[in-house]
Every structure is written in C-alpha cells, then in structure tokens.
C-alpha cells in the first residue's frame, strides 16, 4: 500500500467527495464524518510522503502502470511534499473549525458544499503532485470550478457577480495556459514535464517556445492574482462565505505561485527563464509595483476582509519577485514564503471568520473593544497580523529575511526597499485594528448593562477555537524551525534545480 500513497493522496478525498454527495440524498448525518475522514487520510499520507521523500529524495508514480511519456506520472520531491503537507493541513483544520458554520449557513445543501470542498482540495493536491502538463490543466479547472461555486454562494448581492468575473478571468487564465501547453506540444510532441525538460534545450531560441513560456506564465499569473491581472481577486474573496474564504484565499493563489516556480525549475530550466529571455528584471520590477499597489490599496480600505485581500495581492508580489530574482537564496525565500503565507493567511482569515460571530460586520469600527470580549480569538488574530508584518519569532519574518538576503545577492536593491516599505505599511494596517480592538471601547454600553449582551459576544466555541490556537502556534513553530526547513528541504532541491 505504501507505494500507492501518491495516488491515494488524491483519490481518497475524491472517492469520499462522491460518497458524500451520494449520502446527502440518503443519510445526511454521515456527510460531515465522511468529509473529515476524507481529509484526515490525505493529511497523514502527506506526512508519510514527506518522510519518504526526505529519505529517498524523489518518488515517481506511474498511473495505470504506463511509463511516463505515454502515461501520466506523479513526481514528488521534498518541495512538493512540503506544499502538499501545507495544503492538506490547512484543509483539514479549516473543516474542523468551520463545520459548525457550514451546517448553519447551508443546512439543506451541506452535502453539496462538503463535496465541493473536498473536490477543491483534490484539485489543489493534484496540481501540486502531477508531473504532466495537461493533467495540471484539468486539475486546475477542477479547483477553479469548485472555487467559482463556493465563492458564488456568498453574499447574495455581490458574490454572484464577483464569481462570474472570476469565471471570466479564470477561464482566460486557464486557456492561456492551455495555449502555452499546445505550443510546447507542437514543438516537442510530449506533455510529460521531465520529458519536455529534456527535449526543450535545442528549441530554446525558437519564438514558439518563448511565446509558449510567456502564455503559460501569464495564464498562471491571472490565476494567482498577480498585480496587473488581480482585478477579480478582491471582490471574489471579500464576498465569499467565510468557511470558503478561509479555504480558498490561503490556498488557491499560493498553489498557483508554486506552479509558476515548478514551471521555471522543472519544465523550462532556470537558465532559459532567467537569462535566455530578458524578462526577469521586468518581472521583479512588476512585483515591486504589485507590493506597493497592494499595500496602498489595503491602506485605503475600511473593511478588514477587503484589506486582507489586497494584502494577498501584495504577498503575491513578494513570492513572484523572490522567484524571479533568480538565485537560490531568493528562490528558497519565495518557497518558504509560500508555505508561511498559506499558514498566515489561513490563520488571519479563520480568526476573522470567528471574530465575525461577535461583530456585525467587517468594518474596522466593529472591532472596538474586542480584546475584552474574545481575548483568545483576538490573540490569534494578533499573532497572524504580526506574522504578516514580519516580526520575529513568527514565520513571516524569516521568509522576508531570506528574500532580502537573496535580493542583496542578486543586487536588486529596489526590491529590498519595497519590501521594507510594505512591511512598514503593514504595521500601520494592523496596528490600526489592534488599537481599535484594544483601546477603544464601544460607544454602546453593551458590556456594562445586562448579562445577556455579554453572553451574545462570548468567546468562540471550542471546536473553532482549538484549531485556531493550533494554527497560531504552528505559525510560531514554523518560524522557529524555518532555518532547518530551508537547510534540509528547500535549499537542496532549489539549488539542484537552479544549477
């Protein structure tokens, strides 16, 4: 069974999604346990896989028993396994934390919701693990279609339009990627990543391959909400229902960023991406603009959730910039930032979802006096906020540190300035909220009058609170161990890829 883990990782949640939807018509109570089971197994499998690849270095799995260029293969290296672990952890914890909310918001269609939830995770896990360019497209579409419908279930006034815009942009992105793959296919005749990498070097100078690379890149950048192509992102994530927002916002964009890094390292070689075509400096400058625009736009928002979506835009700038500086340190920083950003965005969205129980809306004014009412939930919010700002020992600091080191090494000082500047803006952003929550007391005398009012805004229930605290601890934990994470897992793979 152990050798089948790469397939089971994706297939177990897939099978359980089908079982859940079937069960939703027969026996509704079994939906949630099935969903939990369907996410717990991939979580344990991804831990085991990380262990296996850490020892063996690389796992290749041939689906259907057909050898790679003809069949589809899964390729797992330590980098993949790390991202897999992050994805499956977030999915599992989020389901535990938000199951109560899901049952409350969608009582009559929770089976469908859980099925879509699991299929979204299937898509993301498959994207990370697959070694076939076309298979990646199909999985991308699974993740996107489930994402569209999960987002479309949100705020009935705005969510459908936001989601439809996401459909249009997402489809353009996926089609551009597909066009790029078509250009690769017509020039090489293969779809397997390893095989394509071997066939490409004599074709590097051809315009078809350069255009293929640009189209794949643009398609993926649309999907990850990179700066000039980010218009769909803030609305889609702001109006999504909160269990879906805390799932999609951390995962989708980061997994796409990982796909970009994977395309650079293991399909087109870094020497092609960074030196053959002269776009790397341009992309880094674009990333700088993305960081600044994201931060400034975040500053102008009064709605906390909308502010966070702009922070995501700015974080994508960090990752893309780090990846395109083009040396091993910056690339390791970018990969570490993907992992960290998954965790911190997840923590901040999850705690925001928990806070929203006690407030009327997501406006900053609603946060007044929250520290008194829900101290633990606010503490997790503070931890994730500090991590996004980048204050040690939270994990955000360490990835920014590696990014800065890499930028110095690559001589890209503009990126450093922008990075520090956006950290300063993040400080303003978050301390604005902390101040409101800590020092300002609500003008209404809700706390002091009756006992009833204080019950209504009591601390988050344990089923949400424990996962939340766990995530916050994980943020610090990852921060402390990020040195060994870089040295043992990320750096060896990245350096081997960059050579």
């Amino acid at each position, binding site marked *: 069974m152990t050798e089948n883990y790469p397939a089971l990782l994706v297939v177990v949640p897939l099978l359980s999604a089908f079982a859940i939807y079937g069960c939703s018509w027969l026996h509704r109570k079994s939906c949630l346990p099935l969903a939990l089971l369907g996410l717990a197994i991939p979580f344990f499998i991804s831990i085991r896989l990380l262990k296996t690849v850490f020892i063996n270095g690389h796992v290749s799995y041939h689906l259907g028993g057909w050898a790679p260029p003809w069949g589809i293969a899964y390729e797992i290296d330590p980098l993949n396994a790390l991202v897999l672990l992050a994805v499956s952890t977030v999915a599992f914890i989020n389901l535990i934390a938000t199951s109560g909310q899901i049952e409350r918001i969608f009582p009559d269609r929770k089976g469908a919701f859980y099925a879509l939830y699991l299929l979204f995770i299937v898509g993301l896990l498959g994207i990370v693990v697959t070694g076939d360019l076309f298979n990646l497209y199909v999985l991308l579409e699974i993740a996107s279609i489930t994402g569209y419908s999960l987002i479309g279930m949100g705020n009935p*006034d705005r969510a*459908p339009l936001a989601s439809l815009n996401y459909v249009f942009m997402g489809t353009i992105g996926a*089609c551009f990627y597909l*066009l790029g793959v*078509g250009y690769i296919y017509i020039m090489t005749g293969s779809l397997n990543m390893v095989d394509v990498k071997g066939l490409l070097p004599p074709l590097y100078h051809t315009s078809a391959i350069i255009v293929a690379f640009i189209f794949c890149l643009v398609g993926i950048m649309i999907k990850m909400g990179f700066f000039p192509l980010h218009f769909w992102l803030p609305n889609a994530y702001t109006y999504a229902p909160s269990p879906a927002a805390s799932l999609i916002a951390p995962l989708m964009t980061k997994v796409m960023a990982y796909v970009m890094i994977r395309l650079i390292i293991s399909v087109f070689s870094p020497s092609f991406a960074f030196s053959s075509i002269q776009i790397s400096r341009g992309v880094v400058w674009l990333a700088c603009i993305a960081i600044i625009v994201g931060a400034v736009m975040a500053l102008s928002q009064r709605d906390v959730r909308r502010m966070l979506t702009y922070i995501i835009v700015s974080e994508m700038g960090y990752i893309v910039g780090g990846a395109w500086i083009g040396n091993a340190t910056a690339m390791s920083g970018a990969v570490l930032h993907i992992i960290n950003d998954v965790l911190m965005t997840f923590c901040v969205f999850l705690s925001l979802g928990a806070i929203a129980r006690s407030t009327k809306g997501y406006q900053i004014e609603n946060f007044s006096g929250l520290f008194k009412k829900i101290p633990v939930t606010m503490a997790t919010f503070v931890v994730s906020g500090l991590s996004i700002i980048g204050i040690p020992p939270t994990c955000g600091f360490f990835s920014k540190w590696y990014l800065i080191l890499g930028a110095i090494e690559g001589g890209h000082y503009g990126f450093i300035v922008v990075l520090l500047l956006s950290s300063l803006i993040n400080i303003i952003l978050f301390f604005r909220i902390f101040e409101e929550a800590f020092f300002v007391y609500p003008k209404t005398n809700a706390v002091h009058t009756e006992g009833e009012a204080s019950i209504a805004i009591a601390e988050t229930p344990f089923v949400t609170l424990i996962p939340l605290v766990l995530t916050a601890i994980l943020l610090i934990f990852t921060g402390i161990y990020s040195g060994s994470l870089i040295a043992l897992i990320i750096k060896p793979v990245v350096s081997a890829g960059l050579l």
Partner: protein
Amino acid sequence: MEFLFTHLVAKYNFWLYIVLMMIGLYAMIAKNNLIKKLVGMNIFQTAIILFYVSVGSKKGGTIPIIEHGAGHTPHGIDPAHYVNPLPHVLMLTAIVVSVSTFGVALALAIKIYQRYKTLEEDEILTRIRES
C-alpha cells in the same frame, strides 16, 4: 510572394484559429452583456480546441481507428497512415471542461438576473453603487 503563398497554404489553419481566438477574447473583454461575454468565452475555448486538432492532423491520414488490413506494413502498423490521436483525447477533455464552465457560468448569470433584473454589466454596477 512565393514565400508568402507557401506559408499561407501551409499554415492558414493556425492563422484562422488565431483570428477566432481574437474574436472570442475581444468579446470577453469588451462586451457589456454577461451572456455575450460567455459566448466569447466559448468561442475562445473552441478556437484553442481547433488549434489542438490542427496539430494532430496529418496529410493523407485517416481516422485513428485501427482496422484489420488498412495501414499495415510487414512491420506492423504504420503510424503515418493515421492522424495523431493524442490531441483528440486532450480536446475531448477540454470540450467537457468548457461545457462545465458554461453550465456554472449560466447558473451564476441567472442568480445575478434574479437579484438585479438585468444582464448588462454597467447597469448592475450602477445599481450596486446606488445601494
């Protein structure tokens, strides 16, 4: 001129798919009506499918169903007699994906219409701004 003509005959299929793709992309970005945008999206997707199918075609190739006798040489089956089947497989998947996206997008469009009673994007945006 001679050069242009040989290029034209050799590649007009690829060029026309690009024209179709441009029509679709233009409709997706510039049109105001949501359903029109959807049609543009579908045209875009079918243009890409056309491109892939063009990649797979071979002059003098027949449909990729191996019949007893046809295309057999003493050494087995000669692949040059049959068109390349791999792009067809990929495009079956792409067609399915496009119809799925179409279904979901129609559902979203109906939901928008239920709320705003219009499908014009600018009218919806003014309604949102007013409220």
